[in-house]
């Protein structure tokens, strides 16, 4: 009985990397994440869209650095000792693209279960609903699972 339950739990559990942006917690699908690195010097790209303001060098690849805080209308904080860059691989129009995402803090790799998923409320949100895949509950907190493809397109 117990075994059965555990098995079921595992089946709809989702591995995520929990990151903090401002006051909020976001859960990035661990399958997307390639690596997490310390901040590196950025190169500003004049004329680029605001949420991808710069590029960085990650292991010899020049990849765009996205700032989700701009997409979610959050204030941009200066880098702290806890700031990290999460490198994710996205499929944009059928092409795999590596993108760096600035996180104010990276908490841990954890599992969230589908049973904890809450419907995205229609009201009470100041973010565009299409940027959000769903909201899940994790340790009595609500975390946002963002739709990265939408956010970066």
């Amino acid at each position: 009985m117990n075994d059965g339950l555990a098995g079921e739990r595992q089946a709809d559990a989702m591995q995520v990397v929990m990151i903090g942006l401002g006051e909020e917690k976001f859960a990035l699908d661990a399958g997307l994440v390639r690596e997490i690195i310390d901040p590196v010097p950025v190169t500003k790209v004049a004329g680029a869209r605001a949420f991808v303001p710069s590029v960085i060098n990650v292991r010899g690849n020049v990849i765009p650095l996205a700032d989700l805080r701009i997409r979610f209308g959050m204030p941009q904080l200066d880098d702290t000792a806890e700031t990290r860059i999460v490198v994710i691989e996205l499929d944009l129009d059928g092409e795999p693209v590596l993108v760096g995402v600035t996180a104010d803090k990276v908490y841990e790799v954890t599992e969230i279960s589908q049973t904890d998923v809450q419907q995205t409320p229609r009201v009470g949100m100041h973010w565009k609903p299409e940027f959000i895949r769903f909201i899940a509950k994790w340790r009595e907190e609500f975390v946002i699972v963002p739709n990265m493809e939408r956010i970066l397109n």
Partner: protein
Amino acid sequence: MSAMDPTEIFRQEASELFEVLEGALLDLGQRPDDRELVDSAFRALHTIKGSGAMFGFDKVAAFTHEFETAFDRVRKGEIKPTQELISVALAAKDYIRALIEDPQSTDDIIGEAILDDLKRFVFPDQAAAPVAEMVAPPLVPVESKQAGWHLYLEFESHILRNGSNPLDLLEDLCKLGPCFVVPVTDGIPFLDEMEPEDCYLKWDVKLHAACDKDAIDDVFMFVSDEMKLTLSPLAHVEAPAPAPLFQLLDEEPAPMAAAPAPPVEAAAAPVAEQAVPKVEPKSEPKPEPKLEAKRDDRGIATVRVQAERLDELMDRVGELVIAQARLTQLASSGSDLSIKMIAEEIERLASSLRDTTMGARMVPIGSLFGRFRRLIHDLSRGLSKPVEFVTTGEDTELDKTMIECLADPLVHLIRNAIDHGIEDTATRSANGKTEQGRIELAAVHSGAQVLVTVKDNGGGLNTARIRAKAEEQGLIAAGAVLTDHEIHQFLFHPGFSTAQTISALSGRGVGMDVVKRTIENMRGSIDLSTRPGQGTTVTLRLPLTLAIIEGLLIRVGEGRYIIPLSAVEECIELTAEDERSRGRNFLNVRGNLVPFLRLREIMNASGAPDRHQKTIIISTGDTHVGLVADQIIGNHQTVIKSLSKLHSDVTMFSGATILGDGTAALILDVAQLVALAQSKVEKQHISEAA
């Protein structure tokens, strides 16, 4: 290692063989007596046939077989390779290529027509002769009237385990003609000794068909390693076969005396080797058919590597070079002597590794030049302008991607040279020139560049007519003073053609502008020079590779940028006077008015500008523009990285690169930058007017 689609491997191999075949056929047109060429063509055909059958291209195998049979008469020296024959042979080659590349769109009728043509030349006395005369093995008296073959088949006992079924092979054999098959059962052991998976039967077959020996060999091609085939011609009287004449154990029977045996073995080897399916066909070294000594550059043992894997390797090496630069920087700031030594050692290794990797991407341009010989052959026949085609510098090496990009522009230039450049025979002889025109295609290294020239000895450009046309199109005012060189530049204008009539080849006015754009996209340049009555030379200047850029590193505010050095004309200091006058953004460069753009404004640079601003004068097309930067750091040679899709809307930059300290720097696309600034100014004017 990813296994490649075997059919794809065959296609690749075949396309190389086609080049060999075409080259040999074309050379044969010049030197009909060269036996080496005939043999080389024959070997290519033979390998195409063998591999074609192996990969299930049955039509290819069948057609090539007929082609080969006909060509065999040439090989035996029974007929001369005439120009007509070579043209038909080239058509046949094209048909085989179509069969391989796009089987759906080919029509059997075309193939039959080509074969009929071929036979007409090869068997002039007997138009509808039987496919071929018997190819008799050595030591066997040639039977003029062959009634068939006597075969004795003995398979190795494990043949069934490899998935081959002797009965299927016998069935195939029966398709060649009526067969009388007798199994030989004397090898069967007692029941308790019998391995159920072994094959103990042998067969004695009498094939009553006047088929070619090759046809029989083809049936057993896959299992030739694992069987003994004894083959003897069947006389009218059905007598038991004499002693085994030759064995198909591990080599093809020695061919006709004319051909040296070893090369044919080499050609047949891949077939035999791959008879047993292998898990990784890619990793197998493939013996390449040996070619004539003068083309020995292709005979060197090669390994086929996917281009993307080379790109990956280049990326890794790029990273290594960057990491090494940082190590060197670190080591030089410390005082540890041993670390310094290691850093130096790694620097040396990294730079030689980079050179080697770059070298691996380099391909001799000869592989490209070879393709044009056919073009010229066809064009000169079609236009009835005999043309001698001379190539030099075939071993000049260029990046593989560059070679691919170069093909189309060169086709345009060569077409132009034959169609417009070379005069017709009557005009030529009237002007005291040889009747045969001459087109030279040459490649030569010049510093970090490669110069590719297409030179004809035709009539040269008609400057007056180009001028008239330019005036007619309103490109210049009538009576404007222009140098000849400036006038010739109009040829690169879109839609500009001086040809009075549109021929099948050229005159539509598309071409030269496309050529110019393609070359410029490769960061190269194109130049024309002409001497009336003596011909025209088109020179293409190309960088050695697309992956590396020679650039000028500049600083604007905090940011560092790279300007492609090919666009840079000169660097000057912005005088205090220029700096003060905000209203007019013009420089006086030796009496010429040059507009300038402040990069600080374009790049939204923060911080205070440097006191002494520098101007880099760049040229894009005919426009000269100054770019004002804070500092010119120096020359920088680096690996180009393209920007991701997320930045595809930013046209100002053509890519990025990584600097010695590990930060990324953007490469300016000067043409786009200038265009952007122009449209900005126009918008400003519109809003001011409103």
